[in-house]
C-alpha cells in the first residue's frame, strides 16, 4: 500500500507517465546453451571459447567448445560470461529513497533486536532493486542496521514478485554493531570535537555479553514464557546462522573474535578497515571478512590514499576469505559493485581473483556456495553475458542475464526514461 501511494505521488509530481516495474521472468522451460564466450568461472579460472548449458534453472554443463549443446543456443562469441554478482550487507528493498524517512525500513528502534527480520520488509518491486540487474548484480543479502543486535538478514534473488519467491536463504544471519573504540566529542557540551577513546566501550561490550548469557540461559530452560529476542539468538548457538559483526578497528575486531569464539558462534567481520592488521588472528580462527567497498576514503590523513582500494588484496594475500560489501554506501550504489572489485585490480590483484570478491568468496561467506557464486555444474543458472570485461565500466554492458535459468529483463525505469526522451528529441 505504502509503495503504491508512493508511486502515485511520483506520478503527480513529475506529471509524466512512470512505467511499471519490470515483470519477473517466467520459469525456465527449455534448456539453454551459451557458446563461444570467455567464461569467468568465478573461482579464479577462465575458459576461453567456453560453453555453458543450463536447464530447469541449474547448470548442466560447463566446458570448452567441444561441450555438447542442448536446447536453445545463444552464440556469445567474443563476449564474456560471469556468475551473477552478489551484493552483501545491502539495504536493497528496504530503502527506496535515502532522504525520505517514509521509504526507509532498515533500522528498527531498540538495541537488542535480533528478532526483527529484513525478509518480510523486502520490496521486490523496488526501482533500486531493478537497477541492479543491468550491471550484473543478481543476488543480494538484505540486512537491517539499527541498534546493537540489528536483526536478522536474508538473501534474495533480484527478480521476483514478492519477498517469498525472492528469498534464496531466509534468515541467514544476525547482525551485531560492535561498539566503537572511539566516540565523538560532544562539542555542544563544551567537549572538543573529533574522536576520542570511547570510555563506555567496556560497558557496551559488557551489555552484549550479558545479552548473550541471558539468551543462553533462556534457551537452556523450558521457555514457558516466550522471549522473542532470546529466541532469535538460537541459530547463532546451534550453528544454523552466522553472526555478522560490524567492526572496523583492530582492537574491536580482536575483541569481537574472542567474543564469538567463546560463545561458539560462526562469525563474519563486516567492515574490517583495520582487519589487515590482525590477519593472523582471523586466519587461525577461520574468520572471513566482508570488507568495505573500495570507493571509500582513508580514515585518517596519514593512511595511504589507496588503502581502501587495496584493503581486499591485503586480506586475500594473507589467506583470508574476503568479499566486498556495500552496506556503508547509499542504496543505489550497490550497482557499482563490479567496479569496487575492479578497483582492486589496479592494486595488483588478478582480474579473476578480484571477481571472486563479489562471487564465489561472497557465496562462501554467506553460506550459499552450494547454489551460487560460480559457473559450475549443479549450481543455479544465475549468470549473465557481457559485451566486455564486466569489472570495468568500459566493458560492463550486459546483453543477457539469467536468474535460475530465467531470462530476466535488463530494462528499468531508468532505461525506459532514457529511451522515451531520446526518442522525443529524435522526432523533433
Amino acid at each position: 500500500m505504502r509503495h503504491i501511494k508512493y508511486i502515485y505521488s511520483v506520478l503527480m509530481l513529475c506529471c509524466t507517465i512512470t512505467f511499471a516495474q519490470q515483470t519477473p521472468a517466467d520459469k525456465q522451460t527449455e534448456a539453454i546453451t551459451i557458446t563461444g564466450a570467455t567464461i569467468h568461472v568465478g573461482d579464479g579460472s577462465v575458459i576461453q571459447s567456453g560453453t555453458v548449458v543450463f536447464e530447469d534453472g541449474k547448470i548442466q554443463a560447463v566446458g570448452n567448445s567441444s561441450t555438447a549443446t542442448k536446447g536453445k543456443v545463444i552464440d556469445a562469441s567474443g563476449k564474456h560470461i560471469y556468475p551473477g554478482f552478489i551484493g552483501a550487507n545491502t539495504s536493497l528493498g528496504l530503502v527506496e529513497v535515502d532522504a525520505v524517512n517514509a521509504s526507509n525500513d532498515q533500522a528498527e528502534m531498540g538495541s537488542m533486536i535480533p528478532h526483527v527480520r529484513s525478509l518480510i520488509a523486502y520490496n521486490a518491486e523496488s526501482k533500486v532493486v531493478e537497477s541492479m540487474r543491468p550491471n550484473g548484480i543478481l543476488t543480494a543479502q538484505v540486512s537491517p542496521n539499527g541498534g546493537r543486535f540489528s536483526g536478522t538478514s536474508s538473501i534474495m534473488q533480484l527478480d521476483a514478485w514478492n519477498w517469498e519467491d525472492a528469498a534464496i536463504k531466509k534468515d541467514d544471519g544476525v547482525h551485531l554493531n560492535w561498539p566503537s573504540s572511539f566516540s565523538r566529542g560532544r562539542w555542544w557540551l563544551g567537549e572538543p570535537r573529533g574522536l576520542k577513546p570511547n570510555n563506555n566501550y567496556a560497558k557496551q561490550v559488557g551489555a552484549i555479553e550479558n545479552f548473550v548469557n541471558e539468551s543462553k540461559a533462556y534457551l537452556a530452560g523450558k521457555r514457558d514464557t516466550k522471549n522473542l529476542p532470546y529466541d532469535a539468538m538460537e541459530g547463532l548457538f546451534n550453528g544454523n546462522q552466522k553472526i555478522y559483526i560490524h567492526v572496523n578497528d583492530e582492537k574491536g575486531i580482536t575483541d569481537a573474535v574472542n567474543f564469538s569464539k567463546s560463545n561458539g558462534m560462526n562469525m563474519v567481520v563486516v567492515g574490517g578497515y583495520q582487519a589487515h592488521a590482525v590477519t593472523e588472528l582471523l586466519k587461525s580462527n577461520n574468520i572471513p571478512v566482508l570488507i568495505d567497498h573500495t570507493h571509500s576514503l582513508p580514515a585518517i590523513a596519514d593512511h595511504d590514499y589507496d588503502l581502501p582500494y587495496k584493503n581486499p588484496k591485503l586480506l586475500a594475500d594473507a589467506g583470508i576469505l574476503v568479499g566486498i560489501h556495500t552496506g556503508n554506501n547509499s542504496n543505489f550504489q550497490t550497482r557499482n559493485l563490479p567496479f569496487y572489485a575492479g578497483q582492486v585490480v589496479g592494486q595488483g590483484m588478478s582480474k579473476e581473483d578480484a571477481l571472486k570478491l563479489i562471487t564465489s568468496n561472497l557465496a562462501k561467506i554467506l553460506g550459499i556456495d552450494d547454489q551460487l557464486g560460480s559457473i559450475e555444474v549443479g549450481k543455479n543458472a544465475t549468470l549473465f553475458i557481457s559485451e566486455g570485461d564486466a569489472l570495468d565500466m568500459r566493458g560492463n554492458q550486459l546483453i543477457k542475464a539469467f536468474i535460475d535459468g530465467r531470462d530476466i529483463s535488463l530494462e528499468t525505469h531508468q532505461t525506459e526514461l532514457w529511451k522515451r526522451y531520446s526518442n522525443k528529441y529524435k522526432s523533433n
Partner: protein
Amino acid sequence: MTKKYLILLMLMCSISLFAQEHFPKNDGVKSENTNYTAFTNAKIYVTPTEVIDKGTLLIHDGKVVASGASINIPENAVVVDLSGKSIYPSFIDLYSSFGVEKPKRQGFGRGQYDPTREGFYWNDHIRPEQNAVDHFKFDAKSASALRKAGYGVVNTHLQDGIMRGTGALIALTGEGGDAERILDDQSASYLSLSKSLKSSQSYPSSIMGTFALIRQVNHDADWYAKGGITVKDRSLEAFNTNKDQIQIIMAGSKANALRVDKVGDEFGTQYIIVGGGDEYERIEEIKATNATYILPLNFPKAYDVEDPFAASVLELSAMREWNQKPSNPKTLAENGVKFTFTSDGLKSPSMLKANVMMAIKYGLDKTTALEALTTVPAEIIGQSGKVGSLKNGAYANFLITSGDIFTKSTTLYENWVKGDKNVINDMNIKAISGDYSFAADGKNYDITISGTSSKPKASIISDGKKLGSKITYKENWVNLTFTGADEKQQEFMRFTARVDDSSNLNGKLIDTNGNTTNVSLKRRPLEAEPKSGGKNTKNGTGKSDVKMIPVTYPNGAYGASELPKQETVLFKNATVWTNESDGVLANTDVLIKNGKISKIGSNLSASGAKVVDATGKHLTTGIIDEHSHIAAASINEGGQNSSAEVTIEDVIDPDDVDIYRNLAGGVTSIQILHGSANPIGGRSAIIKLKWGESAENLINKNAPKFIKFALGENVKQSRSQNGTRFPRTRMGVEQLFVDNFTRAQAYEAKKNSGQPYRYDVEMETLVEILNGERFISCHSYVQSEINMMMKVAERFNFKMNTFTHILEGYKVADIMKEHGVGASTFSDWWAYKFEVNDAIPYNASIMHNMGITTAINSDDGEMSRRLNQEAGKIVKYGGVSEEDAWKMVTLNPAKLLHIDDRVGSIKVGKDADMVLWSDHPLSVYAIAEKTMIEGATYFDIEKDKQMRTQIQQERNELMTMMLQDKNKGMKTQPVKADDKQQLHCDSMD
C-alpha cells in the same frame, strides 16, 4: 569623558579607603603620605634591554621617580635593600576577560532570522557598543592569581560576539578601588569570529558569513557616518566612535589570521591578531600580514600513546603540533614578527612561566620573551610611557625576584602594582631547610626539613623509627607537630620557634603531657648537596635536548619540505589524449617547458629535459571538477535565504589532505562551490590543486567570477519540520529570485544615477550577474525548476551559465540548448532524495547528444579522485564516444568555467596540467602515476611510496618521544583523531 566617568564611579563606591583629595573625609584627619620608597642594590630591568646591574629604583606616589646606578635617595625614603635580587617591569596581558563575565549561552535556537534587539545593528552578533568597563567587577581572587603569575596590568574585554566593543586597561591592585585600577576605559576595540552567546540569530552560520558581515558593517558604518541611515543605530555609532582605537581580533589559528588580515586590508584596518600558536606553519604569509600578534602559550601535552590501538588513529599533524608548537614564538621572532603573549587558553595564569620557559627552551631569546610580556604589549596599546617599563614617570608596576625571572628555581617575591606591595613569597624569610637534632625525655630526635620556605616538609626519626609529622613556616614562625613513639596513642608533641639569626631553631616543646620545655634544634653540618641540585644547572637554554621535526607544507602527512618546481619534462612515446582535433595520438612525445605545453610530436628531444618513458601509458590533461567541496573551511552560509555576499575564497583550506588525494586521482583544477542551503548561495573559488601552497596561491587568478545558486528540496528546507525561512516551496523560490534581481536593478540604477547609496556587497554581486560579469552555477534537479530558472534569467536579460547536478536535464535538454546553458552532472547518482527519483545515468549522454556542453562532477571528496571512472560510465550508459566522455571531466568543465583558453586540452601554449596514467584513463584499472600542474609535479607515485615510509618512521619517532615524556612523569592527554567531515552541498557549516 573619562574623568567624568571615573568620578561617577567613585561616588558610587563610597569606600572610605580612597584617598582622593576631592573626597570628603569624615572618619579622621586628612593625611597625605609624601614618602618615597627606594629599592637599592638590585639588578634592575628598566626595560628588557636597559639593565642596571646594581642600582636603585625610586618610587613615589605609585610611580617611578628615578632608576639608576647612583640615585640620590631623598631623606623621607623607606629604603629596601635588594642585594642579589632583581627587579622587572610586571607583565601585561592584552587578551583578558578579567572581571568581565562571559554571558551564558541562550540555548540552541534554530531558525531564528530576526534580531532580538532594537536600536542596534540588524545583526545581534555585532556589538561594538559594548564597553568592558560597564561590565567590570573587580575579582580579587583572579587578580591575586594574575599577580602571582607576574601580571600588573591586563586589558580586559567582554568576550562575546563578533564585534565585542571596547576593552579596559586594568591595574591589578587590590588597593584604592576601581578609581585606581581603571587606567583606560577605552583601551582597544575587540573582535572575534564567534557569535554572541546572547542571541540565537542564525546569521552568520559560517565563518565565511562572518567575514562578509564584518565587511558589510564597515560599509554600513561609513554610510551611517554620511547620514545615509536616518534611524538610530547605536552599534554603528559606537563602531564609528571607536574606529581609531587599536582593533584586536581573535583569529585563533594561522589560517584565520591570514583571513582576517585580508579583510582588514580592504578597509585600511591593521588588526592586532590573537593567533593560534600555529603561525610557524605558514611563517612567510604570516610575516607578510605585517600584523602584531597576541600569542597563546597553551602548548599541547603529549598524547598518551601507550595503547597502540588508540594511538593508531592519532595523526602525524597532531603529533607534530605537540613537538613543534613551543617553537612558534622563536620562529616568529626570527622572522621579525612582533608579538606579545596571552594567558588566554591556559588553564591558569600560573602556567605562564613554565610555558614561556618552554618557548625559551625551544630557542626563544629571553630578552624577546620579556619584551613580549612588557614593552611590546605596552606599545601596542599606546601606553609605553606608563606601563611595561620602569622608566621615569611610569607606574610603579614591577616584580622583585630572586634572580633571572625565566629560571625554574627563581622565586617571585613581590609584585608591586601602582606602588602597592603584594607579597607573593616572603623575601625576608630565612631558609630553614637542613638537618637538625635535639633530645627530650632522654630520647634523641633527628629532623630533616626540606622543600621550599613556603611549603616546607619535615621528617623526624627517633630510635630508628619514623614519626608522623607536620610542619608549617609562616611569618618567621615554625610550627612542628609530631607523634610520640607510640603512634596508636594519637598523642602529639608540638614544637614552636621564631626563626632568628641563629643557625639553630630555638623554641618551646610541648610534650604529650602538656609540659613545656625550652628546646634548641641544633643544625647538623651538611653532608651532601641535595639531589635536586643537578637538575637546575641547565639554566633554561638546554636547546640540545629538543628534537624538532621539520615543518612541511602543509605541516602533516604527505606535506612537502620543499614545494615542487617547474621542470622541463619530455614525455616519450605516450598515448596522448589531446582533446583537440588530433584526437588520441599513439606513440607521441610531449615536451613541457616553463609550465606550458611546448611541443607535441614524435621523436622530440630537448636538452636538459627530464625524460619520462611513457611507453604503454596514457598522457592526458588534468581532470577538472566543476563541483567540489574539498579544501574549504566552510561551505554553506544558510543564515539567510540569500548569501551573495559570502565567498569561498575567504575560507580556502590549503591543508586539506583531500587536495593530495585528488591529485592522486589526476585532478588538477576544481571549483569549490558554496553549498545548497539557500537559493542564492555564495561566490565560488576556482583553484588549482597546488598542494603545499598557501590559500591565496591556490586561487586561479585567471578564472572568471562565479556564484552558486540552488533550487529544490535543500533551499526550501524540506527536511525541517518547522522551517520559518522563506521560501518553503518551488513557487517561493522563483519569487525570491525575481525579488532579488528586481532590487539589484534598482540598486544599480541608483548607483549609476550619481546619488549617494548604501554599498551593499550582496547587491553588488547580483549586479555583476545582471551585467554578465559573474556566472551562475545552479544546483538543480527537476525539470520544472530548471525551466523556471532559465525563464527568470531571460526575464532579466542574462544567461544561465551552468546547471550543476541537473539530474532531470535530459527532460528539458531542448530548452536548455536553446537557452545556451551548460550542464555539470553526476554519472549515476540517484535515489538519495525524493527529487532524484527520475535521475538516470543516461542523463549526460542525452544532454551531450543535444549539443549541450556537459561535464561530470563529483560534489564529493571521494568520488572526485575517480572522476576518470565516472567519465567511463558515460560510455557505458548511453554510448558516448570515449573521447567525448573524457572531455566531460576535462575540456567541458574548463569550458563551463571559462578557463579553456589555458587548461582542458593538450595544445601547445596551454598550461602544463598533465596526468600520466598507467592504463586507459576511462578504465577502473587506471592509476595516476604523475600529476603535474603548470610543469611542476605535485603527485608522483614513486615519491608517494617514499613518503609512506617516512610517515611510518616519523610516527614511530614521535610516539617514542611521547612515551619518553610520559615516563619522565610529564602529563599526557588522551589521543584524539580528526573527525573529518566530508563536506557536501548539504553540509551546514
